[in-house]
């Protein structure tokens, strides 16, 4: 397609690391020893790992070439729903890479690391201000880790009240980490079917909630991109039965400065700093999943707590109700630095704008593509919109085919086949980083893909063709796993 940003160019082949190199090369300085050689315990000596020996340029070219096979937010639009692939500011990287930060040892005496503690303390406060929650722990290393911490808080809370609860309500639209995290705490997920409108109905909760149920895990906005309007009623129902309300805040990018989650009745919430707060995803991580709670639940948060005693920043260990540690040290500190830098750059007003524009962009895409793609829930959406491949099914063109075709057109595809409740889901989250002109081109290209689905479906089924590899055989990969060389 003429207007699509995708084009073809030179990339370089590159073998696996151990298919290159020669014994005796080296790619890194090793200091000369300035001490005598010591005697070795012979029985414990190993042969050393079988690593290839490469020169420095070998390593540099290897990774330069590999990088060219990849696509990042800096390459182009990445409307991967539920992942908030917004721009990752370079200034954040600079802060995280500053020697004073990278060299900080986590077990430095408190008086030696006041700066780091202050940063964490302030970030806790900022996240509390943004969410409306009262207290924050930055320890969880990712969203799912935050969920686990949150579920541990649930468990600790109920334990503290001598209440034994075995179940937890989880909507069918929930991300897989929710039931998995709950299960780690011994809770049996009870599926809540989302209503016709794509959101939870209070009446369903009323039916399901009981005193054996620890509470509910809600994602809000949910994974259909819809705001759970009934959240306050639902929370009240859950609280009434002694349960707690967990909110998966992965979609916080829709509601900063707008929604106060405590007012929604949320007791525990996690955030994904690697989504809403602009830290880069790094091809899978590291992220950070702070967990935010109401004042009542603060005592359960992981140790050590970072606090300010009026004089200095301190680490509090002696907290008998705490769920304990969830990370060897303070969590993914380098990620926290980036999020902190982002919040400083934005301030309250711009964070709110970011959410407004994120929703504006998603609604614009929704209005522009509906009719071309089937819209299962034609309701006001938040930061993302979910379509399906229903209209393309008669030509036997699937969501996957359209996704692969979009790749050839120069886009990372939307999230596909999630949430599971929507068959053939296409979940588009443009984020606020995309400007109107770029959205317009994306919309035009997607419409054209829809047209191609109708006119030349084989083209889509044969996509992608612009990459180093064609469609990969995932079945064979799983059937005869080859997990190392």
């Amino acid at each position: 397609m003429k207007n699509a940003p995708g084009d073809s160019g030179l990339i370089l082949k590159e073998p696996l690391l151990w298919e290159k190199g020669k014994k005796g090369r080296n790619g890194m300085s090793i200091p000369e020893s300035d001490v005598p050689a010591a005697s070795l315990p012979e029985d414990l000596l190993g042969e050393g790992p079988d690593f290839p020996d490469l020169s420095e340029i070998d390593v540099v070219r290897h990774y330069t070439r590999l990088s060219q096979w990849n696509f990042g937010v800096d390459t182009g639009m990445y409307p991967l729903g539920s992942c908030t692939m917004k721009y990752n500011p370079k200034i954040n990287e600079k802060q995280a890479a500053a020697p004073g930060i990278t060299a900080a040892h986590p077990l430095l005496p408190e008086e030696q690391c006041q700066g780091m503690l202050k940063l964490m303390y302030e970030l806790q406060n900022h996240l509390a201000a943004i969410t409306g929650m009262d207290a924050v722990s930055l320890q969880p290393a990712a969203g799912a880790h935050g969920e686990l911490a949150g579920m541990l808080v649930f468990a600790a809370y109920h334990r503290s009240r001598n209440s034994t609860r075995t179940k937890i309500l989880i909507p069918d639209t929930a991300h897989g980490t929710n039931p998995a995290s709950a299960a780690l705490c011994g809770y049996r997920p009870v599926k809540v079917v989302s209503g016709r409108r794509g959101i939870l109905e209070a009446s369903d909760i009323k039916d399901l909630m009981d005193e054996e149920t620890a509470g509910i895990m809600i994602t809000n906005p949910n994974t259909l991109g819809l705001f759970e309007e009934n959240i306050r009623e639902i929370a009240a129902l859950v609280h009434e039965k002694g349960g707690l309300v967990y909110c998966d805040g992965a979609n916080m990018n829709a509601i900063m400065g707008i929604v106060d989650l405590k007012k929604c009745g949320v007791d525990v919430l996690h955030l994904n700093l690697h989504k809403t707060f602009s830290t880069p995803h790094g091809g899978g991580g590291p992220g950070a999943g702070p967990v935010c709670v109401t004042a009542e639940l603060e005592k359960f948060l992981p140790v050590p707590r970072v606090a300010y005693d009026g004089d200095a920043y301190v680490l509090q260990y002696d907290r008998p109700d705490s769920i304990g540690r969830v990370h060897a040290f303070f969590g993914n500190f380098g990620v926290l630095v980036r999020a902190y830098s982002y919040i400083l750059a934005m301030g309250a007003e711009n964070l709110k704008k970011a959410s407004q524009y994120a929703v504006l962009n998603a609604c614009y895409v929704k209005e522009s593509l509906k009719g071309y793609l089937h819209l299962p829930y034609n309701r006001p959406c938040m930061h993302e919109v979910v379509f399906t491949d229903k209209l393309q099914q008669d030509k036997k063109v699937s969501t996957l085919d359209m996704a692969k075709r979009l790749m050839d057109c120069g886009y990372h595809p939307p999230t596909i086949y999630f949430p599971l409740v929507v068959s053939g889901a296409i979940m588009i989250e443009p984020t606020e980083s995309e400007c109107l002109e770029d959205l317009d081109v994306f919309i035009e290209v997607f419409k054209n893909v829809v047209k191609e689905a109708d006119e030349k479906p084989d083209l889509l089924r044969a996509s992608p063709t612009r990459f180093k590899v064609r469609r990969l055989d995932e079945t064979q990969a799983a059937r005869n796993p080859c997990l190392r060389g």
Partner: protein
Amino acid sequence: MRYLPHTEEDIQTMMARIGVKNFEELFPTVPRDCRHDEAMALPPPHTEWEIDAHMEELRSMMSMGAQGNVLVGAGSYHHNIPSIIPSLTSRSEFLTAYTPYQPEMAQGTLQGVFEYQTLTARLLGVDVANASMYDGASALAEGLLMALRLSRKKKKVAVSRAVHPHYRDVVATYFRPTEFEVVELPFQEDGRTDLSSLSDISDLAAVALQSPNFFGVLEDLQAAATVIHAQEALLVAGFTEPLAFGLFKNPGSQGADIVCGEGQSFGIARSFGGPGLGMFGCKEQFVRNMPGRLVGETVDLEGKRGFVLTLATREQHIRREKATSNICSNQGINTITATMYMAALGGSGIAKLARLNYDKAAYMKERLAEAGATLFAAPGFNEFVVEFSGDFSGAHKALLQENIFAGLELGRYYPELQGRYLFCVTETTPRAVIDRIVEEVKK
């Protein structure tokens, strides 16, 4: 604002298409009583240079600056990081990509992780390594849970007290709401774990040892494996300092069934303790019970080699509450970092660097012994526990004034070791600093 491209005109155009008049109307589904009453209480927007200045101020609140000499490891090690690593990991194609859900468009990440799995498996002596866990601590907790899944009916695991105390804390946290029990194993006078009580523990699914352990001491894993396997339990071998395997036998070759630990030593900065890298591997037969992502080799429809995420049926997004773990995002780019480091070092280099760490630690131990200090008798790598003939706390304080962090006092972690210090010496520790500490000890 430089991150927000929307002009007033754009906003009007878009609102017109959507059919709303203002931002208020964009959020019709958010009830009034769910809303923030006021603007969020946050600092005002900062320019890049205000951020620089602010962060500089925070950094200046670190008396032990970047130039300090930290002779403490304890799970976070100071090794030299070659400058190719930041230059390459900062390439935005790696850094700003998501999890490789669309493999054709993410072969860079996928081949990179496949290489990580391979070099990690070779390093640890295991058949398979996964695409990472959050850190060494959560990796250990998940390793023990995995062993329990594999044992099917057993309910107990034993963990050595010579395992990093924070890792044991995390294990305790993960285990608290479960039906499983964690038993602690004491350590001997020589610094190794005392396995003599093992046979008394019934219903034992796994034993977790760490080697080099928290005291820097190398456990006799082979002997331990024999005992543990005899009890039909699995040996879960942890580590915090994988550089040791450049010189010493790796846990897999000694009979460990599950190997899990922290890979921060490999090209990743200490960064106040994170992000690090949870390394995790196991024997082939256990792979379908493994937590975490896996990248596998496959072919495309023309038969060309390529890589994909695989065996996802173990994972939360398919298996939900029945998954082997709840982990989704992992340590991503840090796997690439560690692989670059392993590749830049190479087989020859890692042997040399490990030896250098060993020799320098040995040098300090010898000097300290000469100065009257007592050490654990069992051999170690680059960390060791020192019992001084007198009180060291004054010297410790004095050295701190010189920007030397001379060891970690162990009383907080082990009351019985009150007054002893855990030291770490790596290739970054100047001999002069070692000599300076010894001098202070002699005073």
